[in-house]
């Protein structure tokens, strides 16, 4: 037993008697951890801000206008298409989605209370596309002057269900304000990095920004629920054969086609990857330099009878210790910093993303140190006599 603990003893004593040196390398790992966790949170925050509404949709497929390249802004569908899609066998329900944006006048009377920029989504209560209501009620009719807002709107404006909000949109000649009653609250729903205000689709048509001459109501998307979600691929192919001038996308395909979404996510993934690589190189460099400095000492240790595995285990134990301490410090610092972030910053810590980041961080130590471990394990005991074979 003592024999097996000897490498751990050596690793521990070396760290204890060189606290500053090992603490500094842990600190570096802590900084890398902080960076990786923030990049992951930023990817989650930005991605979520773009994707949230689409990814939470209670629908299996989205209908776009043909040749819109899955660009929601470029997709314009007359309301009549909804009926055509609904009649396709295998479709259970359809719902309209119309997209625009505006601002809500801030009722808070502080000088920095700017209007809140929001996405205005026209939907129909009870149909796919409408959000689940977590308090209050859905719209009473399709043209009622009502709104359902997501929780961020409530938080930022300090309003509640039952209050009135003033929505300001551009009407060509200038901004116009529309008074709406907040009837319901939805869970987090963002679109285009903006919090969402849901309007009944005909109210939406009245409120939406209009730059040109008054055009008839066009939807951007139609949300489709299938009788059997397993038929997704078949239905995706079938609908355009029965409804003219449309193209289809699944949910994931739809949000990945959001402008800049993929580019943004891959940029952040690349940053995270390179930060991890830097971590690997930093740890690798540190332990390799240390291994080089320790050649005479390790040679001596092996000459007096320490087995190669002992030297390797001692090296691995140190690397794991230093990495775990670094990741704990970095994780703690991230938690502290996260609580001080002002609202509205697109940084979102999710358990899943953080766990994935931490697991990858725990690997950078052993990966970075692998060369030095191998190097130390191969040092010849003959070195103790100043010889080599």
């Amino acid at each position, binding site marked *: 037993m003592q024999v097996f603990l000897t490498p751990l003893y050596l690793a521990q004593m*070396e760290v204890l008697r060189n606290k500053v040196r090992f603490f500094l390398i842990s600190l570096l790992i802590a900084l890398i951890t902080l960076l990786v966790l923030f990049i992951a949170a930023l990817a989650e925050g930005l991605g979520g801000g773009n994707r949230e509404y689409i990814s939470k949709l209670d629908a299996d497929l989205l209908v776009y206008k043909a040749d819109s390249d899955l660009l929601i802004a470029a997709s314009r569908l007359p309301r009549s298409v909804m009926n055509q899609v609904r009649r396709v066998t295998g479709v259970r329900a359809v719902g309209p989605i119309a997209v625009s944006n505006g601002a809500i006048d801030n009722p808070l009377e502080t000088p920095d209370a700017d209007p809140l920029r929001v996405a205005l989504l026209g939907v129909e209560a009870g149909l796919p596309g409408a959000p689940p209501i977590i308090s209050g009620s859905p719209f009473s009719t399709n043209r009622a002057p009502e709104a359902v807002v997501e929780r961020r709107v409530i938080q930022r404006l300090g309003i509640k269900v039952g209050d009135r909000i003033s929505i300001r949109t551009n009407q060509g000649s200038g901004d116009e304000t529309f008074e709406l009653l907040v009837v319901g609250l939805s869970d987090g729903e963002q679109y285009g990095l903006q919090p969402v205000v849901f309007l009944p689709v005909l109210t939406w048509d009245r409120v939406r920004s209009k730059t040109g001459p008054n055009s008839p109501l066009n939807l951007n998307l139609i949300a489709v629920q299938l009788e059997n979600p397993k038929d997704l691929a078949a239905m995706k192919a079938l609908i355009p054969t029965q409804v003219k001038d449309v193209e289809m996308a699944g949910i994931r395909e739809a949000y990945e086609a959001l402008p800049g979404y993929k580019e943004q996510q891959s940029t952040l993934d690349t940053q995270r990857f390179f930060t991890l690589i830097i971590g690997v190189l930093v740890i690798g460099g540190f332990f390799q330099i240390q291994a080089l400095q320790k050649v005479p000492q390790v040679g001596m*240790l092996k000459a*007096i*009878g*320490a087995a190669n595995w002992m030297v390797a285990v001692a090296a691995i134990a140190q690397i794991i210790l230093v990495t775990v301490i670094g990741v704990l410090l970095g994780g703690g610092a991230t938690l502290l910093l996260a609580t001080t972030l002002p609202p509205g910053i697109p940084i979102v810590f999710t358990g899943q993303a953080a766990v994935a980041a931490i697991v990858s961080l725990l690997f950078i130590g052993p990966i970075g140190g692998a060369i030095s471990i191998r190097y130390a394990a191969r040092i010849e005991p*003959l070195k*103790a006599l*100043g010889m080599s*074979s």
Partner: protein
Amino acid sequence: MNEGIALSTESLVKSYELDGQKFNAVNGISLAVTAGEFVGLVGPSGSGKTTLLAMLSALLTPTTGKVIIDGSNLSDMSDKQRVEFRRKRVGFTFQANNLIPYLTALENVELMLRLNGELNAAGRARSRDLLARLGLSDRLHNLPSQMSGGQQQRVAIARALIHNPAVVLADEPTASLDTERAHQVVETFAQLIHEHKRAGVIVTHDLRMITYTDRVIQMRDGDVARIYTSREEIKELAASGPG
């Protein structure tokens, strides 16, 4: 095999290739060291002393010939067995880098017992006693960097003896010491070899140090040039100077 012989070699050869020329760094050496005997290995630089020592300690495989320690032939052992053999049956001191820099004097000595899984209360007490015997009772908790070269060598001697090895091998232990310290170190070393009944071999180029040995093997070009056995011969050789 003779009663009391702890270490012996038979026609030990180590060949190296140099510029396509084969030459023997150690050229067929046979010797025997009994338990409690302290043997000096001297000779000019390049005469094969360290090479011989490396073979005696199972660090280097002979080209031909045998090393027998405690009745075991080192050539019959696997690599793993040789590591274990060094850990259990050999005590070492080296010219430099003898100690683990982040362990104290006491911890360095105890490490030898730890490696063998034998560190217990009695072992700790023996380690302290041995260090005290070497004049280091007030240095037990000093790191090597806080000790002089002579003190470090004495810690290494304690480590070389603490686990009751069959043979104790010392490679130039006085190389970095001044004369007075060198004498102190080798004298104590000799006393302990005799007391603990170990077979001791000390490699030195400083002929004055061999006054403390029982027999001197003088090497030249891989061969035994001469063996000094009587006290008079050894004294005379030692008086011939620092070497």
